[in-house]
């Protein structure tokens, strides 16, 4: 969809391209410029609009009849060939029906009993490194913890965790400056869906459906509440969502608390502040930077008309740093207590796994404080993920004072 030629929005300098790797190091000055100068921005190369102020992000997130999720929450015009519908690629009433089936599972109260297994897993992952004084907190810890938990909830064999994580990484990969679907997205999708299909067929053949998430979804299909594609789509989403973002959240608070050492010192003195540190990281440097919507009808914003059928980027982390909404928003304050941030999105599509992510994040931080409270980052050796949507490290090597085995 092209805007009318006379529209001054066409003359905007092209300062925001989420597909450009160079942006990923520090997108925040660009976000600030968008908020101040171009609150409705239009990217000519990829043909999408972007909102960056808190109030505008909320308008889009809440107004789900105008700003639909459509086929996907990406800005790409096409979805990955072979992918299936899942709740992020649905709108009411189908979205409502599917979300209700699983929502109970993810309520904070029902997630809380996982505390013990999350802590045990975190300790097991950190223990071999405690005496060495070195760890790649992403590769050795943060990439493994959330995957282990979601795999346990789905009943996936722990031996397969690394393989599944590889496929989910393949699915979200994009080349520098490009929003084209690439071959690994397709093979990753095929592999992941094939894995779950085999798992389901194996259980049906054995006559043991099980009581984990996979078992529940099979039961919903047998009761006619879901069709088979929806079951596979659900598992596909959970595998990706359960992996990617929580991993990056752990990396991002590792960085933020190193950068803001006075806050880490307070945390060492009072680890009960850990939940607040996780929350503040979600606000100021949340892994999900941006999500896309599509206009079902024209919409007026800041004096322009966004035509129907346009892609709209909602820059969540820009909204979270909007000085029109938060005091001193670019300062990391773990006792800020903001619970209206957009780190998990907002509205009907707000992150289903938010309570689990908070739990995993808090326990990961508590265990890191217990094992390596003085972590130092070797900045030159860090490596970033390159995604238009998710911000975080793929390698984050730390050094710390070694501890003798407890």
């Amino acid at each position, binding site marked *: 969809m092209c805007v009318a030629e006379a529209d001054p929005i066409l003359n905007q300098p092209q300062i925001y391209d989420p597909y450009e790797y160079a942006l990923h190091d520090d997108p925040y000055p660009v976000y600030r410029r968008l908020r101040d100068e171009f609150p409705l921005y239009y990217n000519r190369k990829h043909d999408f609009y972007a909102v960056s102020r808190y109030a505008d992000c909320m308008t889009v997130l*809440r107004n*789900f*009849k105008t700003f639909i999720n459509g086929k996907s929450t990406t800005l790409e015009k096409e979805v990955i060939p072979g992918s299936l519908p899942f709740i992020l690629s649905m709108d*009411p*009433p189908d979205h*409502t*029906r599917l*979300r*209700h089936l699983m*929502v109970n599972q*993810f*309520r*904070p*109260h*029902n997630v809380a009993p996982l505390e013990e297994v999350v802590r045990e897993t975190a300790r097991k992952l950190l223990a071999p490194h405690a005496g060495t004084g070195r760890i790649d907190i992403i590769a050795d810890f943060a990439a493994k913890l959330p995957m282990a938990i979601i795999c346990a909830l789905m009943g996936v064999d722990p031996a397969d965790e690394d393989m599944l994580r590889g496929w989910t990484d393949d699915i979200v990969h994009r080349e520098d400056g490009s929003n084209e679907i690439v071959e690994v997205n397709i093979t990753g999708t095929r592999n992941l869906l094939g894995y779950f299909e085999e798992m389901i067929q194996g259980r049906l053949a054995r006559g043991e459906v099980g009581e984990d998430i996979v078992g529940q979804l099979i039961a919903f299909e047998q009761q006619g509440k879901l069709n088979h594609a929806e079951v596979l789509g659900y598992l596909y989403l959970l595998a990706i969502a359960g992996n990617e973002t929580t991993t990056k959240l752990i990396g991002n608070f590792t960085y933020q608390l190193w950068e803001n050492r006075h806050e880490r010192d307070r945390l060492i003195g009072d680890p009960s502040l850990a939940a607040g540190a996780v929350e503040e990281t979600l606000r100021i440097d949340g892994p999900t930077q941006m999500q896309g919507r599509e206009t079902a009808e024209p919409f007026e914003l800041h004096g322009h008309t966004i035509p129907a059928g346009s892609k709209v980027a909602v820059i969540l982390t820009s909204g979270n740093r909007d000085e029109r909404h938060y005091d001193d928003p670019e300062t990391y304050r773990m006792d800020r207590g903001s*619970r*209206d941030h957009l780190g*998990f*999105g*907002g*509205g*009907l*599509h*707000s*992150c*289903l796994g*938010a*309570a689990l992510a908070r739990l995993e994040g808090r326990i990961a931080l508590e265990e890191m404080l217990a094992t390596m409270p003085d972590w130092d980052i070797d900045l030159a050796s860090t490596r970033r993920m390159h995604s238009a949507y998710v911000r975080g490290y793929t390698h984050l090597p730390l050094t710390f004072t070694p501890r003798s085995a407890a």
Partner: protein
Amino acid sequence: MSDVDFTYIQPDGEEKQVEAMEGMTLMEAALFNGIDGIQGLCGGICSCATCHVALDKELYDKLDAPSEGEAEMIAMLDDHGPTSRLGCQVSISEALRGARIRVLGTEA
């Protein structure tokens, strides 16, 4: 699934009658109908308490009691009362037909 009609009383006192599908929640029906004061930030996982409503005593008693998790969230709200509920935890059913739901408009 049939539609159930009931009324939201928005924080400014304005009333809005809606029809909503059975099985949806009071939070979702409020977002669908643009009711002021219901934010539903967490999308219904019972973790943000931005969908605080008060029910009539009679209706409150007719519904299942709030779960422990919901009760804990409600207890943390400054303006909670004896018939407070979180809209995302109340499923729309026949019991709500003709009901008047007071939106308390909790600040996030």
